[in-house]
């Protein structure tokens, strides 16, 4: 405005003080100095406080023995003699495991519910609506506590555990499943499984190219199913079924044998899946609604039924709208898994920012590592989803 006035009154250009560029530089320098001063203030205070309280600094504590045990340690051996660094990895793996399973299940549930809410069947649409509106408007922490203290803690005690199909047992200490024992020669089955997946992918690509070229279709689904399911099953039978199970049996005060899924894990997983599933359902619904109705009508005119219309026409176009918000739901699920600390599932926050921090007192380093880890996970998920988004984006000609 000042510039305009100067021009209007005919004075010779802006003076030094009212020049926009000078002002911009001054403003930025002042901001930078203020922020730097604030940071120096914090760092100075922290170093003084740390010294006064006699808290060690640096990352040396990561190699020291932790001295505590963790009930859940997937893939990693963890005992009281393991280091704090190892505790970090156990927490990280626990976070990643629950996030990965949660993301897969929530996506399935969300897609099903999103499509169901648009179903021509009035009852199904209403059931989906009630589920979405109910779950979306309740705090996640409340849902986690409900599943843990309300549902799973109310399960029968270990002596009256509910027998399920296949020798599994359900009680308030968790879901006890038969544990498979692999005998020699079993390795053939997973190897063949992986090989048949690879072959199926190759066949699918070839079939797609051939359909593009000649219009002939190839039954990829049945071939793939035959390969992926059939081949390992045949191999399993041929090698003489090298697999047996140990079943959980009540001995004394606890179950012996089998493997167990702890209630903490189940409660967290149920809550995360139901909560995130409701949000994904809304995203899917809005994505499908964003596809013009003319597309559905065109598909109907071509004689496609509802299933193929959804699969071949609507979903591929809707995905372009769905993927960006879906990414942030995946990120939310991963971050929300940190609420595990409320029910004692030892995830990254629970083990590292909880137990390790309390034992070492090195708040700055611990919180720094935790935050950086979450930032890195977020970055990786968004990089992957951006790549996927680019792949399915509309190619404009």
């Amino acid at each position, binding site marked *: 405005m000042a510039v305009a006035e100067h021009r209007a009154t005919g004075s010779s250009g802006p003076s030094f003080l009212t020049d926009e560029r000078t002002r911009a530089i001054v403003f930025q320098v002042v901001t930078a100095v203020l922020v730097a001063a604030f940071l120096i203030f914090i760092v100075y205070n922290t170093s003084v406080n740390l010294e006064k309280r006699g808290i060690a600094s640096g990352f040396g504590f990561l190699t020291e023995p932790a001295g505590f045990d963790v009930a859940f340690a997937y893939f990693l051996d963890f005992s009281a003699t393991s280091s704090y660094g190892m505790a970090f990895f156990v927490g990280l793996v626990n976070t990643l495991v629950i996030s990965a399973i949660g993301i897969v299940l929530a996506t399935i549930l969300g897609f099903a519910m999103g499509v169901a809410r648009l179903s021509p069947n009035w009852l199904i649409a209403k059931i989906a609506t009630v589920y979405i509106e109910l779950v979306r408007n309740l705090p996640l922490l409340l849902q986690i506590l409900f599943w843990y203290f309300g549902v799973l803690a109310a399960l029968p005690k270990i002596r009256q555990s509910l027998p399920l199909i296949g020798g599994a047992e359900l009680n308030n200490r968790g879901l006890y499943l038969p544990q498979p024992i692999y005998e020699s020669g079993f390795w053939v089955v997973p190897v063949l499984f992986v090989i048949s997946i690879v072959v199926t992918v190759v066949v699918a690509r070839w079939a797609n190219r051939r359909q593009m070229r000649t219009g002939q279709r190839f039954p990829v689904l049945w071939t793939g199913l035959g390969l992926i399911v059939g081949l390992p099953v045949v191999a399993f039978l041929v090698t003489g079924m090298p697999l047996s199970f140990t079943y959980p049996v009540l001995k004394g005060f606890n179950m012996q044998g089998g493997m167990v899924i702890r209630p903490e894990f189940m409660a967290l997983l149920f809550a995360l899946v139901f909560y995130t599933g409701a949000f994904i359902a809304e995203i899917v619904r809005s994505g499908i609604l964003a596809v013009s109705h003319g597309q559905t009508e065109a598909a109907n005119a071509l004689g496609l039924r509802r299933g193929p219309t959804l699969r071949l026409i609507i979903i591929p176009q809707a995905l372009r709208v769905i993927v960006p918000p879906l990414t942030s739901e995946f990120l939310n699920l991963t971050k929300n898994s940190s609420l595990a600390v409320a029910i004692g599932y030892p995830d990254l*926050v629970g083990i590292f920012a909880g137990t390790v921090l309390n034992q070492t007192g090195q708040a700055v380093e611990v919180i720094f590592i*935790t935050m950086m880890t979450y930032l890195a996970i977020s970055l990786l998920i968004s990089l992957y989803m951006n790549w996927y988004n680019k792949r399915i984006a509309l190619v404009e000609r």
Partner: protein
Amino acid sequence: MSAATETASHHQPLPDRSPPVTEVGLIGWLRKNLFSSISNTILTVLGIYLIWLVVPPILDWVIFDANFVGDSRDACTGSGACWVFIKVRISQFMYGFYPADERWRINLAGIIAVICIAWLVIERLPYKRYVGFFALVPFPILCYFLFRGGLGLADVETAKWGGLFLTLVISSVGIVASLPIGILLALGRRSELPVIRLLCTGFIEMIRGVPLITLLFMASVMLPLFLPEGVTFNKLARALVIVALFASAYIAEVVRGGLQAIPKGQYEAASAMGLTYWKSMLLIILPQALKLVIPGLVNTLIGLFKDTTLVLIIGLFDLLNIAQTAVTSTAWLGLANEGYFFVGLIFWIFCFGMSRYSIYLEDKLDTGHRKR
């Protein structure tokens, strides 16, 4: 024209036959919506089975088998819910450990808040501008003194605050503080000044990349280290700051979406009119941008409201934590579901109400630029 009409009118068409009973009325509706095909019929039957499986037990538990009378655990003899528990503890659920003699202060502030909100929401009432100003500036100051004490009122330390009261305090402070901060951050992220842009982007991405819990942990263990000796914040103030900053980063991204959706011509027209940066933002850009992002803003605010429950983890007694403490107390052991149901009901009413209001607001402010 008139001749043609006249000749045509000689031929009286037969009256329309009524549509077949299978296409209209209840039967038609059922056929169309529930039994249009075999697969649909199967789905309907499955749906009815699901409802039969879920709804009657819940109704039994909540109403038919529930216990409403009495004043102790022993009064609960039925197999259903024990609402006696809620009845006995209701004041704790509402006010936390706030001294009973001072609760009129919360009630007073609550009544004023309800009147202000109703005044702002009901369209016909005049003087909205003044009421809005009162609600945003003098009223919070008044609330501070009412809740905390001073000006001749007895002191009530924040450790005694709790229940729904604390939840509402945290969420309203969070909402009121995070909106302006978020808008400033969004403007900063789109600023032409590289230093400002970098700082704002860094702050937003940093906050959005980590869970709220780690930030709350940071506030409770690291803030004392950051401050000079002797300067302390209480737990509640730390939580308030963190919740507001956390929400503002999310609001910034929502608002940025709105800013990017405004056509470039609007920015150019504003500067062609000779408006300064702040004037063009306040008068031209933000009113349009904020209107566009109302659904996103309300979703973020609902998220903030639900996220206030996380203060449980750093030991503040919000509504959920009060319930959690109550159900683990020995006198009322095993009544977890009653507590969660009650807390859930309150949260659900607030969140659902907010989302409905945002849909209404969106329709009201719609100036017809959207495609229908």
